[in-house]
Structures are given as structure tokens and as C-alpha cells.
């Protein structure tokens, strides 16, 4: 079985429902859902709401002020919003996958440069800005679009460019709206929250605490894999000649490594909240600590990257740091889907991956 699991964990699983079957419950905290809600979901969503609201306010101060003095504050608020999103992005199930919310905040990966093409098109157009951004292409709606508007060519003239500033404001408002919708989706009285915190046979989508634990394991694994495979590795390339920093998210604002480090930190906080580090089972805790060890090293390595993202992927020393982080992330994912999931009594199906 071990060999089988270790093969499976190499394959990215980004499915929308738990692909884990449960065998026993003794190692899972019976209140795993409430723990995750209180310890991770609620504070994380509140912080994202505040950060995206603050970004919107900061843009309000700049737009129409015909002065660039507020731009520093906008950049600071953007950085905070991206970091807050890093934590939220780990919760890729339930309300975050409803109504394309994940993609609307963070249309990624974008190998064809759809965001750049559409944002440039919109900025250059003579047409009035769309009234309802939420109804437009997802690539126009979120943080990668703002990364270009605020930090791409012409971003330094934000206050003098009414159209650009109004669009930036609209994107920030849209992200803040989605942050609000996420909180509503998790709010008291919703069927989703009831199922997550008090799973039962007649509730949907979670019928048992093991299914909730399975969702948490899958979310953590998906987040690690996504950060590694969709955010870092494509920019790193297989060799230094193939390094392309411009394939990394938020390279224009320079937030790439802070963002991926925030995602990793989010995974650490999530598994801790779920009781995988200090929960009822010493065996599980040991594997949770092992994951934390790998993830802490990955974060340290990413935070130590010295160069700007555009260049760092192609510079030897930084490249080594990034590469090390991806290896540590793979190790953490391996522990998660292998030993930790096994100790929780969760068995990963051989045939449950999406797309087969």
C-alpha cells in the first residue's frame, strides 16, 4: 500500500470533492471542522476582507487626487492583500470554488498571457469601462490584473490616468466583494458551514468528520502542489537557460516569493488548526511536525531570495533557494498524502483523480 500511495502523491490532485475514503476515525479530532473554522477560516477571511477593503480605500485616495503621494500606500495595501489572499487561496473548496471565485481573484496559471492581453486591451480602448466587472472575463477581475495595472508600464502614473485608476479601483472593489461573498458563504446558518462543522449523514457535502479531515488534507496538498507546480516550477524551468521569471505570479510587484511563502504559511496554519500537529494522535502529530519542518524550510528559502522575481529564477544563488523550496514542498506533500493521510485512516483512491 505504501508503494501505491507514494506513486499517487506525485500526481497533482485538484479535484473538487474529497478523493479520500475513510477507514477509522480514532485519530481525527471529532470537531476537526470547527477547529479549522475558528482557527483558520474565520481569521483568514476577515483579514482578506480588511486587506482588500483597505486596498480599495487607498485607491480611492489616489484616483482623482492628481498626485502620486498615495501610491506608496496603494503598493503597501496591494502587498497586504496579496499576502492575505495567499492564506485564503489554500481553502480551495466550498465557497471559494463556487461562482469561479478562485479564478476571479486569481486567474492563474495564465500561460498564454490572457490577463496582460485583456487588461492592455481594456486600458487602450475608447469604450467606457464595463459597469459590472464581475460579469467580465475572469482574467480582468483579480489580483494578477492589478499587478499589471499598478506595477506594469504606466503604473507609476496612476493618479494622472483616470481610466487606469478607475479600472484599478473597480478591480479592488470586485476583490473586496468576493472577500465579502466568501465570508457569507462560510457564515453561520449556511448549509455548507453546518456540514463542515457538524457533518452528518443527511448533510452535504460532508457526512462525517473523516470527510472533513479528507477535505482539509486535500486542500493542503492541492495548495502545496499548486504553489510548486503552477507558480514556481514553470518560471524556474528545467535549466537556468529556461528560467523565465515572467512566468511567475506577481513578478511585476515583486510579491512572488512573499506570496508563495504566505501560501505555505497558510498550509502550516491550516494543518495546525485541523489538529494534525497537536491533535489526538501522536502518530499524526509526528507527521504533521515533519510537514511543518519541510514547509518552514521552504518558506525560509523563499523569503531569503534576494533578487527581483524577474531575475531571481535565473540567478544561481536564488535559483538554488527556489529549487530547494520546491523540493521541501514536495517532501511535505509526500508526507501529507502518504504517512499523515494513512495515520488519519484516510486512504487515497487509486482511481479517484480528476481527468481520468
Amino acid at each position, binding site marked *: 500500500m505504501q508503494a501505491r500511495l507514494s*506513486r499517487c502523491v506525485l500526481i497533482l490532485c485538484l479535484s473538487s470533492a474529497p478523493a479520500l475514503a475513510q477507514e477509522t476515525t480514532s485519530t481525527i479530532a471529532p470537531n476537526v471542522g470547527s477547529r479549522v473554522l475558528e482557527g483558520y477560516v474565520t481569521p483568514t477571511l476577515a483579514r482578506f476582507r480588511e486587506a482588500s477593503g483597505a486596498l480599495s480605500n487607498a485607491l480611492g485616495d489616489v484616483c482623482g487626487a492628481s498626485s502620486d503621494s498615495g501610491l506608496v500606500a496603494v503598493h503597501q495595501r496591494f502587498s497586504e492583500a496579496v499576502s492575505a489572499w495567499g492564506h485564503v487561496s489554500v481553502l480551495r473548496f466550498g465557497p471559494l470554488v463556487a461562482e469561479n471565485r478562485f*479564478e476571479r481573484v486569481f486567474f492563474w496559471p495564465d500561460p498564454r498571457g490572457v490577463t496582460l492581453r485583456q487588461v492592455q486591451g481594456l486600458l487602450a480602448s475608447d469604450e467606457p469601462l464595463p459597469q459590472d466587472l464581475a460579469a467580465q472575463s475572469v482574467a480582468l477581475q483579480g489580483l494578477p490584473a492589478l499587478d499589471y495595472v499598478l506595477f506594469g508600464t504606466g503604473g507609476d502614473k496612476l493618479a494622472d490616468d483616470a481610466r487606469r485608476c478607475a479600472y484599478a479601483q473597480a478591480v479592488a472593489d470586485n476583490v473586496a466583494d468576493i472577500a465579502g461573498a466568501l465570508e457569507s458563504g462560510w457564515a453561520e446558518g449556511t448549509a455548507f458551514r453546518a456540514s463542515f462543522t457538524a457533518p452528518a449523514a443527511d448533510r452535504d457535502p460532508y457526512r462525517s468528520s473523516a470527510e472533513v479531515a479528507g477535505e482539509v488534507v486535500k486542500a493542503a496538498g492541492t495548495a502545496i502542489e499548486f504553489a510548486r507546480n503552477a507558480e514556481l516550477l514553470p518560471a524556474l524551468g528545467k535549466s537556468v537557460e529556461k528560467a523565465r521569471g515572467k512566468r511567475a505570479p506577481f513578478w511585476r510587484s515583486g510579491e512572488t516569493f512573499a506570496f508563495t511563502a504566505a501560501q505555505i504559511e497558510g498550509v502550516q496554519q491550516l494543518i495546525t488548526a485541523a489538529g494534525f500537529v497537536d491533535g489526538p494522535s501522536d502518530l499524526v502529530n509526528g507527521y504533521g511536525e515533519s510537514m511543518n519542518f519541510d514547509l518552514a524550510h521552504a518558506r525560509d528559502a523563499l523569503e531569503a531570495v534576494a533578487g527581483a522575481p524577474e531575475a531571481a529564477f535565473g540567478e544561481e544563488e536564488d535559483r538554488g533557494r527556489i529549487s530547494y523550496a520546491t523540493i521541501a514542498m514536495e517532501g511535505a506533500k509526500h508526507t501529507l498524502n502518504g504517512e499523515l493521510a494513512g495515520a488519519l485512516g484516510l486512504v487515497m483512491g487509486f482511481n479517484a483523480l480528476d*481527468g481520468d
Partner: protein
Amino acid sequence: MEIDRRTFLALAGAAAAFRPALAHAADEALFLGARLNGGAFEAAVIDASGRDRLVLPLEARGHSFAIDAPRRRAVAFARSPGRFAVAFSVDGTGEPIAFAPPPDRHFYGHGVFTPDGRLLLATENDYDGERGVTGLYDASAGFRRIGEFETGGIGPHEVILLADGKTLCVANGGILTHPDYERVKLNLATMKPSLSYVDMETGDLLEQAELAPELHKLSIRHMTLDRFGAVWFGAQYQGEDDARPPLVGRHRRGHAIELFPGPEATLKKLDNYVGSVAIDASGEIVATSSPRGGLSVFWDAETGRCLGERQLKDGCGLAPLSGHRLLGTSGRGAIVRTGPDVALESVREPQASAPAWDNHLRRI
């Protein structure tokens, strides 16, 4: 066409393993599945008792097969996004032939032979072009690739041949992927799955059936043909966890797609995921499996009525036995006889040391 070094090594090692375990009668029921056996990936021919009759090592995980029954041969495909295929005799005669798609394509794991055995067609990803194709391989010339047809969509998965022997039906799952991003789905917000009917001689897109816009995240993946010539399909839902759209449907040429939710409790257990679709020997009963939910569900092909369900943990592979019975396999090593009219009968018990069977089991 250059083959991967690992394919070469796997096949070099195959010489010893690749031989029939037992002689068999020509009309004996044999089945073909991909599996992971003690850390090694294989394609295996088994009989209805679950005995290995032929084992072919594969370099990585296989998925489904194209079968040329009159000529007793088959092609094993790599699981998406793999790039190897191996043609072999199901009786273990002759040397296996390995081949690969062009460098800018990968397989999705399914394919069919033309009835005359001359051509092999395989679903492939033109990932830089963001479009699905069926690659055409000359089965009489070492499986040289001689061209491709567009499938009229993104992410073609299973392809089947209609009863006329000249029309392909392709399930365009609608999910865009690129090997640079492993299996990450790149277009969930804009997915548009479809069934495409393609003229096998000209590549013309003859007809295309789509789902209602609100079901655009219902990825159509696997298909079978019923006795009446209708295409049945199973889908995987990429939307919200607590939405429970129907996962099983039927399409008749010239008509709209019909969807069959079945009983609410059954639909819920399918867990938004159908992993394989098979037809029984009579062509009257459609079987759909959900490894996630650990159950198979049976449908009356004429009326779309749900005929019941059978539980099997991580069960996915299904292929017809006689009558209304099917042989089923699981990722935990189980082999069972199943069907709407019979209780599940174990052929091989699940166990940790048994081979883990991949999604598909095919009757040769």
C-alpha cells in the same frame, strides 16, 4: 518516431514477462486492464476468474486500450499526460511495438482501431494550440503517425467507434491542461465540454452535442454504445461540491442530450465523479462506476431508469461478462462479478499486496 528510453527499457525487460501464462480457447472471455503491481506498472490480460493470462510491463501508469479483436492485438496507452503507447498481441505472440505522439502532443489514454485494423486513432492534446485532436497511426506500418483530426473541443478523453464503423464519437471533456503545469486545470471558468461526431475518413465534424450552459462544468469523459445505437456517457463535475448535477447521459444523433440523475441518494454517492462507463453483453444495461463513491450504478438503456447500485471500494473498471453481468476491478485489488440482477460476487478479494487496477477494464 523516437520512443522514450524508459519505454525501451520496459520493453527490453518485457521479454521474459511477456508470454502467455496459459493457453486458451479462441472464444474464451478475456479482459484487459492497466494496473500497478508491487510497484511496477503493467498491462494485464486476465480471464473471467481473474487469472493473469498475459502481463506486459509499462514504463509508467497505463490507462485504457484500443482493441483490434479480429487480429488479436491491442494498444496500451499512457495515462494523461503520458506519451507512450505499446501495441502488442493479446496472445503474447510477436514483439510489442512502442510508439509515441509527436513532441508537442500527449495522449489522453484512449483510442480505437478502425474495423479493418488498418488505422489506430488516439485522443491527444495539442496543448500549445489549446485544442483536442485524434492522432492517426498506421497500424500496418509500425504505428507511424500519419496525421490527425480536430475533435472540435478541448480535452478529448474517450473516443469510440459507432456501429456504422466509420463515425467516431469523441468526448471533449472541456478541461484545458498543459504539461508545463502538470494536471492543473487552466480553464474551469470557461469550460465547454461536448460530444463530437467525426467522419473517420475525412475528419469532418458531422455533429456536435453540448450541455446546457449552466452545466458547462460537467466534464463528459467516458462513453459506451447501447443496443439501439445511442451513445451513453459518464461525466465528472468540476463545479461546487454541494451541487449535484446528473452525471449520466444519453445522446442520439440529431437529438438533444438527455441526462439521467437517478435517485437522489445514489447521485449523492457518486460524488460528482463517474470514472468509467460500460455496456453489458445484451447492450441493454449501462453500467457507470464511481471510484470516489465506491459504487457502480446500472441503467436501463431503453428508458434511462436507474436499475440499482453495487458497492465496491475504489471500484472503477467494468467490462461485460454474459447476460446482464459485468466483471469489475478496483484500485484495491478486488475483482468482482456484478450487475443489477445479482449480488456482488467476489472473484478476487481486495488486499494490499494485490495489483491496483486503473480506471478501465476492457473485454477483448
